[in-house]
């Protein structure tokens, strides 16, 4: 009991601190101006500085089998400095060529005190800015030499683009959910997993993240915005007799407590997971397959995020080590003309679904905007930060990062839509027809996926991998659908793209955290169910460890069956 109260205490704390927070912006403003004056006078003058200060408050709560296992909270304040010497044409952020495999993430980030004590914050900002300047002049020197000794770049665009100063300040929001209420709810939901002693792992968890972001730069921008999120997960896993671990989960995303799912929904979801896991555990192992498949909206969203989304992030087109898949695709047809792809960070909702890639200003102080990437199958645009690429000089508000990383262009709310849709039943019929045409006994239906990954470099094959959790065989001879397990969806981007042939009239949404060079950022991917004429699956890596030797210790003498 006491345990819980302590944390409620901490959350109260956070509220009482809020009133003074506008001071932060003023301290940052006066320090950035003072530093800029001094650094403009140096032999290597600074031409631009920005400070991004992020207040991060997190609460994590999780329950297993009816008992709270974890309840903790944390608070930190991170300062990110973008300090540039040289000129917009060529500065210290320029991509170094042939740096080899040395993987160095330049993290100009520093921690600040969490209290609003002017002197304490000033001192840390001062010391951090000085370090950032020293590191900038060192990089700039190296870059000047690098530019001289290496071949001329294909893309000679500038390193930085102008963006007019922005002033924006919103009331800081902070989520304080009723922990006692939610503790009881997740305890009751997690207790449902007691029903199946063969579910070896299960958890219901809530993570609350309150981000308050402050941004100032030497061009005169001042932005203050809140990005609160709440995520709720129900996850469980079982083990097949052959040792394969079989996880399944359900996740929920909300901006505030009132949007969180109620207990009834959660109970239903947990019960559904229990039933499905029982079936998956008994399901046959799928072997290698190549043939037609349907991706549910959610699965299609993740599929697009991996095979497409990461390849249209602007800065990759400038990186000589990147495969630059869509470099010369502007105004080219790259996919079936029924498909449109856009990114829209200005939306927090799509057809009644909350979507998590929402923000008002990106992490470079640029206003968010909708970007149409593919219109009727024709490639139109890239996701841009303030680092220009040839032909695309301006940011379109996609310079993003996790606090502590350098902002680069990243995805937001990926939205796939189709000009021509069929009913889901029709899509299923088309799958069966296509399978028959290809001489297959069945097609595959990917209902739920866990996530995926891809490579975009030149030294590694440009494949992607999407990890399905729930896959059905849809037989051509009318037999009922059958759950199968043990396969990953794989492929290469351009080939897979050319195989998309139809879309349904539904919409599936996947909310998640995308990890890349600028850290983890919240994104979403939404799509109708898609029919793909040829997909390929490979066997999943599998645990070699057997199921437990002994039976559940108390299953026989309690109501656990």
């Amino acid at each position, binding site marked *: 009991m006491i345990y819980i109260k*302590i944390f409620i205490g901490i959350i109260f704390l956070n509220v009482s601190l809020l009133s003074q927070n506008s001071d932060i912006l003023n301290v940052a403003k006066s320090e950035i101006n003072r530093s800029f004056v001094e650094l403009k006078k140096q032999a290597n003058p600074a031409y631009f500085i920005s400070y991004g200060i992020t207040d991060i408050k997190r609460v994590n709560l999780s329950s297993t089998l009816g008992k709270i*296992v974890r309840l903790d909270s*944390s608070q930190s304040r991170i300062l990110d400095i973008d300090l540039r010497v040289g000129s917009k044409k060529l500065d210290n952020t320029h991509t170094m060529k042939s740096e080899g495999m040395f993987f160095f993430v330049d993290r100009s980030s520093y921690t600040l005190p969490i209290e609003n004590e002017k002197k304490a914050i000033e001192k840390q900002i001062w010391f951090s800015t000085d370090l950032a300047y020293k590191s900038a002049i060192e990089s700039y020197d190296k870059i000047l030499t690098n530019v001289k000794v290496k071949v001329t770049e294909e893309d000679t665009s500038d390193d930085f683009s102008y963006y007019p100063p922005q002033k924006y300040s919103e009331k800081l929001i902070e989520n304080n959910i009723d922990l006692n209420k939610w503790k009881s709810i997740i305890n009751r939901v997690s207790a449902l997993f007691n029903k199946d002693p063969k579910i070896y*792992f299960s958890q219901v968890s809530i993570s609350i993240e309150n981000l308050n972001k402050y941004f100032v730069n030497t061009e005169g921008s001042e932005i203050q915005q809140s990005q609160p999120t709440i995520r709720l997960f129900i996850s469980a896993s079982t083990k097949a007799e052959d040792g394969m671990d079989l996880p399944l989960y359900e996740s929920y995303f909300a901006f505030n407590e009132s949007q969180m799912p109620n207990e009834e929904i959660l109970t239903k979801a947990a019960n559904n997971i229990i039933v499905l896991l029982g079936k998956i555990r008994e399901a046959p192992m799928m072997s290698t397959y190549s043939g037609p498949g349907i991706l549910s909206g959610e699965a299609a969203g993740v599929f697009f995020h991996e095979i497409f989304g990461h390849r249209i992030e602007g800065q990759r087109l400038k990186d000589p080590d990147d495969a630059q898949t869509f470099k010369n695709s502007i105004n080219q047809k790259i996919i079936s003309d029924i498909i449109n792809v856009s990114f829209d960070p200005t939306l927090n909702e799509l057809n009644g679904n909350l979507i998590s890639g929402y923000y008002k200003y990106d992490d470079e102080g640029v206003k968010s905007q909708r970007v149409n990437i593919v219109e009727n199958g024709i490639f139109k645009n890239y996701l841009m930060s303030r680092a220009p690429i040839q032909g695309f000089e301006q940011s379109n508000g996609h310079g993003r990062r996790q606090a502590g990383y350098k902002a680069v262009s990243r995805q937001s709310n990926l939205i796939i839509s189709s000009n021509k849709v069929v009913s889901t039943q029709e899509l299923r019929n088309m799958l069966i027809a296509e399978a028959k045409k290809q001489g297959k006994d069945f097609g595959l239906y990917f209902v739920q996926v866990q996530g995926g990954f891809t490579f975009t470099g030149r030294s590694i094959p440009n494949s992607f991998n999407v990890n399905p959790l729930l896959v059905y065989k849809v037989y051509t001879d009318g037999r009922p659908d059958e759950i199968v397990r043990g396969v990953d969806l794989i492929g290469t981007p351009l080939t897979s793209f050319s195989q998309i042939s139809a879309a349904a009239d539904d919409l599936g949404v996947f909310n998640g955290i995308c990890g890349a060079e600028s850290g983890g950022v919240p994104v979403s991917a939404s799509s109708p169910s898609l029919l793909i004429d040829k997909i390929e699956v490979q066997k999943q890596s599998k645990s070699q460890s057997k199921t437990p030797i002994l039976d559940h210790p108390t299953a026989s003498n309690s109501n656990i069956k």
Partner: protein
Amino acid sequence: MKKIIILAILCFFTSNLFLKANYDEAIRAMKDEMQRSLTELKIENLTKPYYIEYILTINNNNSVAAQSGALKSNNTINNAKLSVKMRVGDYSFDNTNFLDFVISFFRMGAEDGGWINIQIPLDYDYNSLRRTLWLASDAAYKSAVETLSKKQAAIKNKIINDTTADFTKMKAVHFVDTLENISYNHDKYVQICKNLSDMFTNSDAYSSLVTFEYNKERVIYLNSEGTQYIKDESNSGIEMSAFMQSNDGMPVMNFYSTYALNPNNLPSQDSLKKASNSIVEKLGELANAPTLAEAYSGPILFTSQAAGELFSQVVISNFVAQRPLMTSMGKQQISEQTLNYQNKIGGRVLPEFLSVKAIPREEKINNQYLFGYYKYDDDGVKSQNVELVKNGYLKTLLTSRVPLKRIQESNGHNRNGGAIPSNIQMTSDKSHSKSYKQLKDKMISLCKDRDLPFGIVVKKIINRNVFYTGIMQISNSMFSSEYNKLTHPIEVYKVYPNGKEELIRGVILGSLSPQSFKDIILVGNSNNIYNFLMYNVVEDGTYNPSISPVSVIVPDMLFEDAEIKPNENDFPKLPFISQP
């Protein structure tokens, strides 16, 4: 403000958390699952476990960090963890003392390593514990039989010379070693940290950090030999660090640390304020101090904190008995640094006027609390005072239940995963212990004999742990890891023939080994009691660093011959921007 009060009151209550823990239920669940595992846990054709240990730990960790008068972090964590240790084979030859690279390096996921530190609910009950113990025992057993078969394979084609058993049998013990309810007011330490850190705000220090930590744990333990105990442990400490640059760019640092098992035995706020003041002052003095013109070779006197740090860094880890681990590639070499005494039992390791004892059973010396005090070790073995070095000769080493060829019995030094020093006290005979003045005079006369214009006193050396928890956190690579060595002492003084002392900066100390301690010619006549947190010496195969409270009690030490030289490295440039 209002909130901090709420927090404080609640934290005060958390001490009751331990009282709420349900021991009977825990022990009953442990006994039942242990019995089932001992009799039924078996894979066809493979051996059953012969020894099982269940360890349930309830933790309460409080930490505060402040910088220039403002809070930097403030955390309270309560959790409960469960670990299972399992041995298959028998006492003479089992799955331990073997390093399986595959299992050790790729410990991930629920099944590999899923029996160590499993987080469990604080309000665990019989059923939830049984269930966790069931899965953890299963995972631990599978790993144990696999490791045993690898170990058996590794010796198949070898003639084994050392047939020392893997584990010693122990008679069952039952004890309860719980602490009185320690009164603890979290808010008080939040304020102390803020107040102390504020002393640095208007100083020339570039950055500074003041941290406080108080950790409390209760362990509920059961093993299959019948040993059963409940044991409380606590430790607390305050650390302060600061740094700046001299005009020539040389980075200089200073720190303060104090530790006590009970936070109420930490120094008063007034004396902490004095300490932080003196750190600021000394840092400024250091930044303006002269450097050493040329290398020096001659007598060096180590006093106060430097004597403690020197002894703790160079000598005491060598007192730990270390069993070389067998691997599929032969015997595993252990870091040479800590092995100097392993084959020296009976040999001389110090001058004949010096002796060393481990005194874990002493709570205080001269009314000062010792950090390495405890009643029982983690095996449930009663702590023992041990004579390590008598009149210069090494008698024995500090041991756990893992026997060595020459030491079969545990002397109660197993803490946090392996044998580790406790309170280590160095003493001298009367004729060689002198006052500070006499030590200085002796040094000066030695200098005269060698035509040296001055002698050297080292009074402060960076503490290894504080270097990471303090200096590295605030200085952003200004100090390389080189600075975390004896070779970069903080406070060094020239001592002139008239006795005058002059602070110098930027000196590098020539390396000192345990053998160098044979050349101590005189020691001081008072004790330097130095408490600190020590990293584990024995590698338990998990590669998780653990820290234990340790204390050394040493006199000032005069070495006949040592070396220092000026630091002639390149230094970072001074700040381009003026301080706000």
